[in-house]
């Protein structure tokens, strides 16, 4: 891997590999906590804090953690940081704690955090990993904020609780289906704006999952593909 500049590592997560809009990971918190701008921002900041801390620690320990048990180790480290963030949010922002609910502890299983640990922090230096964490965190927060403001504005006519468009509300956008819809539209706009170049994934598949490399399903899929190819070849020969 060639040496990348610090700036490109930082901006990588914000634009080129935005976790939500380009890599299509972390969809659960994206859809669930973007019903309003304040929720989206709160979730983004909480996840960013965990992501930066876990990236730094995992990168610092990358030579100590044995390769075979790395995933459980990462999960325990991440869970520790999530517990700290839970305490802080409970103490200083109880309203946010209430509206995020179960999604605050669920940062543990946020694909972005484990995904970055697997894809970046266990191969790169501490400073690079911290920058990657900051960039990815900002990218996640911006995407959540964008979705949150669209959904809050169209759903209630307000933004951060202040009325922007009086007597206007389309309840659909505040509810569950609106989340899927706004996410789909945002990705479609992105594809149209970049003529399909930005999005590397053309379909939802296992490839987006951070567990992909250590997962048996990927192997099984490859086996199935290999078998199908063999059958096709036999057919062609006959």
């Amino acid at each position, binding site marked *: 891997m060639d040496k990348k500049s610090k700036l490109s590592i930082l901006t990588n997560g914000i634009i080129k590999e935005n976790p939500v809009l380009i890599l*299509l*990971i972390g*969809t*659960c*918190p994206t*859809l*669930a906590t973007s019903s309003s701008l304040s929720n989206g921002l709160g979730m983004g900041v909480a996840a960013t804090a965990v992501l930066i801390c876990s990236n730094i620690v995992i990168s610092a320990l990358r030579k100590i953690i044995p390769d075979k048990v790395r*995933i*459980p180790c990462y*999960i*325990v480290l991440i*869970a*520790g940081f*999530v*517990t700290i963030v*839970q*305490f802080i949010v409970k103490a200083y922002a109880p309203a946010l704690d209430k509206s995020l*609910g*179960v999604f605050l*502890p*669920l940062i*543990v*299983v946020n*694909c972005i955090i*484990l995904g970055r640990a697997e894809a970046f922090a266990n191969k790169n230096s501490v400073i690079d990993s911290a920058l990657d964490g900051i960039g990815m965190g900002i990218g996640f927060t911006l995407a959540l904020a964008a979705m949150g403001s669209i959904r809050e504005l169209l759903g209630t006519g307000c933004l951060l609780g202040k009325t922007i468009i009086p007597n206007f509300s389309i309840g659909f956008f505040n*509810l*569950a*289906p*609106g*989340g*899927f*819809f706004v*996410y*789909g*539209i945002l*990705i*479609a*706009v992105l*594809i*149209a704006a970049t003529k*399909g170049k930005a*999005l590397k*994934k*053309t*379909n*939802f*598949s*296992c490839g*987006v*999952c*951070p*567990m992909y490399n*250590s*997962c*048996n*399903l990927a*192997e*099984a899929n490859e086996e199935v593909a290999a078998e199908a190819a063999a059958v096709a070849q036999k057919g062609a020969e006959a």
Partner: protein
Amino acid sequence: MTNLIIIFLSIVFVNNFLLSQFLGICSFLGVSNKMSSAVGMSGAVVFVMILAEAVTWPVQQILDKFGIGYLQTVVFILVIAALVQFVEMFMKKFLPSLQKALGIYLPLITTNCAILGATINAITFEYSFAQSMIYSFGAGCGYAVAMIIFAGIREEKMNDLGDAVPAAFRGVPIILVAATIMSLSFMGFTGMFQ
């Protein structure tokens, strides 16, 4: 008894994990491209969800007894990860046919928010042991219902849409729009069980 039935039905239809609470969306969008994998994944989720609930509920009582309930997140994810590993080894040894059907989906489940979400929710709602078992069974069933319907739609109708879809919507966005419509139809259940 009616209480238990209401918990079950409301988690399957009204508060469906995938379509109205957004728990487990990664696997919902990722594994639903083939019916066979959707069925396998749903089976594995139902199985692990019940087991995880049966283990984490007593664990929470122990944590509360020692006044360390705040360790919930760390302990639960560890318990679930260990449980999945253990189930995998047990099935390999004693139930090879089941292992063949569900085994490949098990590692995915450790990081599935639906499992951790169900166990934490059952504690937050202060359910009794019987209630939380029904809750997690219902959550798993709801997951299976949504997953299998969506996989059916994708396999039947969405594999070769071709020119029927505007260029910008091909691939990912149209899947999300289909999920929107499914989620809308499940909203019809809102208010059924109070």
